[in-house]
């Protein structure tokens, strides 16, 4: 029929007839049977009919395969297979898809409500939507998916609006997570896989985005409450859920930040209160309170760092929140001490002999590690460095450092965090001390080789490098003759070792062991060089006036008052004062107290150190001025012309690693640099600066 020459070629008729036979079958058999059925039964019938139809298409198109190969190819008509499927689509699908869609969606809703449904049936029905597209997803997406998503949104919107009123935040989240899981499950069982992201996004939007604030702010169970009661599991769930919606973590991290800030501020307040209560009683206890404060801050940090790592899966947003929260209260300071000072004191207490904390080596290492971590939050790093150096100097010079390894270890940690410049001086100090010990050995050798040089007193000299150590006032104390001899001997010895080095003696840091021959018994007194010099004056006179002592020692009033107080008004009264009052006045007279005794054979007479806090802060201030100057000049040198705001910003950025300069300080320095002709204002725009080379 098909191979004859026209007009006996019946291909066209055959092709038409092929289509008609489908149409006839569908209209007479398929549609009526479908029309009389409804809901699930209709779906079953549809699936059956579709299967039949596919078989029919397969066989018929095979019978007329010849058409496919020549007639259709030549005329570029739709192939037989497609014609067969198109018939079904045009006649059955077009008529029924609305009904089918509604039936499917109602089944899905039933399942959501917990009923058992025939998942295989749904799978088959939905396959029809896919197959009918013949490779295109349009039919599935437009005729089914869109409506299904809309229904889903409506369904969960209804649900969520109930839950948000009735449920606590953890319960709500449990439900939401469960729903998401089930929807995912649904996709894998009968929906097309391309629906998964759309469906989940839909559910997340209705359940989470819409109610995010309401949910997080729930008064007794929201994010605040979860943090307050340490509901780690719920918090993890919260993170999992909210990480899925766009910008969903922002409010969570901001609540986290608020919470940590509040906890930290409470610690500051607590320490503040404790300090003001205790202040009346005793000074030492204040120190202890501050020690406790740092401990508590470390604990707080440990706790919330663990939250960030575990609950919040190390998310950068939460690291940032933690950092910002700590920066807020770590820079507040407690009872007049800046946190930089507190941290330095805390380190000192751990590192010195007989500090208040008794820790194992590992615990010390761990604590130091944490202190250094906290330092990252403190903006006045230079202030910390200065206080730390002061304390380190005391530890090293008065042999109070408990362990050399720990000293070096914390310096390594600080170096890692703040850079080599930060620790170079401190490292120099530690090295100086090692060198000083070697030096002492060779000094002793020198003395044994030169017996006539021996001053008759055991002398230990610690030679330090000026730049590394904090600056100390060196007064020309009038040393007792015995000690002058010592100084000369050492100077001679030092000359043999090095040339071109200048020795400056800092007597205020020296200690002496004196033998005191008191009437009851002989005692060994451990005193500072100042105290010793004062006491030795009484070898030649029995009674001295304040001014005589001051002239003979060549010291300032402050120092004389301090040391005389330690010798005549404090615990050990080596000197008798006239009149016998509790404070020193310039009209007092002093006498050697030969009756003095103590149950110990050796006693240490402390000389309270001058409060160095003010000086440290002043020093740091001065250093900052130089640092700001240098930074401004550096910036202007490279930029030549720069607006005021930008200059300030760049300056803050450059210096931020060490400290946070305030704008006023920078402005003052700019003014100063203008006066010194480093900069000038632009003639027309006073907010613009020019660098003057």
């Amino acid at each position, binding site marked *: 029929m098909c191979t004859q020459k026209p007009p006996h070629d019946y291909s066209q008729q055959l092709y038409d007839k092929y289509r008609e036979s489908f149409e006839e079958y569908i209209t007479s058999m398929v549609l009526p049977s479908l029309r009389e059925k409804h809901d699930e039964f209709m779906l079953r019938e549809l699936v059956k009919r579709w299967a039949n139809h596919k078989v029919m298409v397969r066989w018929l198109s095979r019978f007329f395969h010849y058409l496919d190969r020549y007639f259709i190819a030549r005329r570029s008509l739709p192939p037989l297979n497609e014609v067969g499927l198109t018939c079904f689509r045009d006649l059955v699908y077009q008529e029924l898809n609305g009904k089918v869609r509604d039936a499917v969606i109602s089944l899905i809703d039933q399942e959501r409500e917990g009923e058992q449904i025939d998942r295989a049936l749904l799978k088959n029905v939905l396959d029809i939507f896919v197959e009918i597209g013949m490779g295109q997803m349009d039919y599935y997406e437009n005729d089914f998916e869109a409506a299904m998503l809309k229904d889903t949104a409506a369904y969960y919107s209804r649900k969520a609006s109930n839950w948000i009123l009735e449920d606590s935040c953890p319960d709500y989240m449990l439900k939401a997570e469960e729903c998401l899981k089930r929807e995912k499950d649904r996709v894998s069982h009968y929906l097309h896989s391309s629906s998964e992201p759309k469906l989940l996004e839909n559910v997340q939007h209705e359940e989470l985005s819409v109610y995010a604030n309401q949910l997080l702010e729930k008064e007794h169970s929201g994010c605040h409450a979860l943090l307050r009661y340490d509901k780690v599991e719920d918090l993890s769930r919260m993170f999992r859920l909210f990480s899925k919606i766009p910008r969903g973590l922002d409010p969570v991290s901001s609540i986290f930040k608020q919470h940590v800030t509040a906890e930290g501020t409470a610690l500051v307040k607590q320490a503040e209160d404790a300090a003001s209560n205790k202040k009346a009683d005793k000074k030492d206890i204040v120190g202890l309170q501050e020690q406790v404060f740092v401990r508590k801050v470390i604990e707080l940090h440990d706790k919330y760092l663990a939250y960030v790592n575990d609950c919040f899966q190390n998310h950068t947003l939460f690291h940032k929140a933690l950092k910002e929260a700590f920066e807020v209260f770590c820079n507040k300071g407690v009872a007049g001490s800046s946190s930089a000072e507190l941290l330095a004191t805390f380190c000192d207490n751990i590192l010195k002999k007989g500090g208040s904390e008794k820790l194992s080596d590992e615990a010390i290492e761990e604590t130091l590690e944490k202190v250094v971590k906290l330092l990252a939050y403190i903006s006045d790093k230079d202030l910390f460095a200065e206080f730390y150096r002061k304390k380190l100097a005391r530890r090293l010079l008065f042999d109070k450092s408990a362990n050399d390894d720990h000293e070096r270890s914390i310096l390594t940690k600080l170096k890692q965090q703040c850079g080599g410049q930060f620790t170079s001086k401190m490292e120099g100090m530690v090295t100086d001390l090692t060198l000083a010990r070697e030096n002492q050995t060779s000094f002793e050798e020198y003395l044994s080789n030169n017996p006539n040089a021996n001053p008759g007193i055991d002398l230990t000299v610690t030679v330090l490098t000026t730049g590394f150590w904090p600056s100390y006032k060196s007064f020309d104390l009038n040393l007792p003759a015995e000690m002058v001899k010592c100084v000369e001997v050492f100077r001679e010895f030092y000359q043999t070792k090095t040339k071109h080095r200048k020795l400056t003696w800092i007597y205020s840091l020296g200690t002496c062991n004196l033998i005191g021959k008191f009437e009851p018994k002989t005692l060994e007194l451990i005193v500072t060089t100042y105290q010793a010099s004062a006491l030795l004056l009484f070898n030649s006179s029995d009674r001295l006036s304040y001014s005589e002592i001051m002239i003979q020692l060549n010291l300032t009033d402050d120092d004389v008052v301090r040391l005389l107080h330690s010798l005549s008004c404090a615990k050990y009264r080596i000197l008798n004062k006239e009149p016998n009052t509790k404070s020193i006045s310039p009209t007092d007279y002093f006498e050697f107290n030969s009756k003095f005794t103590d149950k110990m054979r050796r006693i240490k007479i402390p000389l309270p150190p001058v409060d160095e806090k003010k000086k440290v802060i002043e020093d740091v201030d001065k250093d900052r001025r130089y640092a700001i100057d240098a930074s401004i000049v550096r910036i202007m040198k490279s930029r030549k012309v720069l607006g*005021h*705001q930008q200059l300030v910003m760049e300056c803050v950025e450059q210096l931020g690693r060490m400290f946070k300069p305030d704008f*006023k300080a920078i*402005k*003052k320095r*700019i*003014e100063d640099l*203008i*006066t010194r002709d480093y900069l000038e*204002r632009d003639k027309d725009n*006073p*907010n613009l*600066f020019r660098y*003057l*080379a």
Partner: protein
Amino acid sequence: MDLRDSSRVDIFEIYQRYCDIRSGNAYEGERNEQDDHAQRGKSSRDALAQLLNFVELRMHMRSSIFDELAKLISKLEMMVNFSEFSRFYDFMFFMCRENGQKNITVSKAVTAWRLVLAGRFRLLNQWCDFVEENQRHNISEDTWQQVLAFSRCVHENLEGYDPEGAWPVLIDDFVEHMYRVSGSNKDPNLFCNCGDSESQLFVFEDAVP
């Protein structure tokens, strides 16, 4: 005319000389544009230093510098032209310098301000009181010049002050102080009062010539 030779020098000649140096025609008329900005700045600075030296030698014995300056103000009719006024304002600073120092004392600065800014700065009284009370260091030339700019752009209610601007710290502090004063005392009369005092100053200013 060479100043060194004249035995009698009055404030008018010094001012003339000062203006010449400032406008750059004291030494050479037109230098070409290529001429280094810094170079010219330096030579004019040197010339000013010389002039100052001279002033100290000659003026020293006479009546107070401020009487002289007041005389100059009354004679000059530069009050209309701002650039001329601004030059005169700088001249005030120049005349207040002592012993070759770059900065002038607070007391001289305040007297000079009261003289030169009368009727031109609505917050003059408050400003001078504030400076006398709070400024311990000398007044630098930059601060001096910025006060003129400040007096021109700021209204009596401090409107026109840009907190982001590169004002000298002294001016920032003054603004802060004024806010504090007006904040603690919400009485709107405060501003009316200063308005009144200023209008009195205006009257005074009118009476001078």
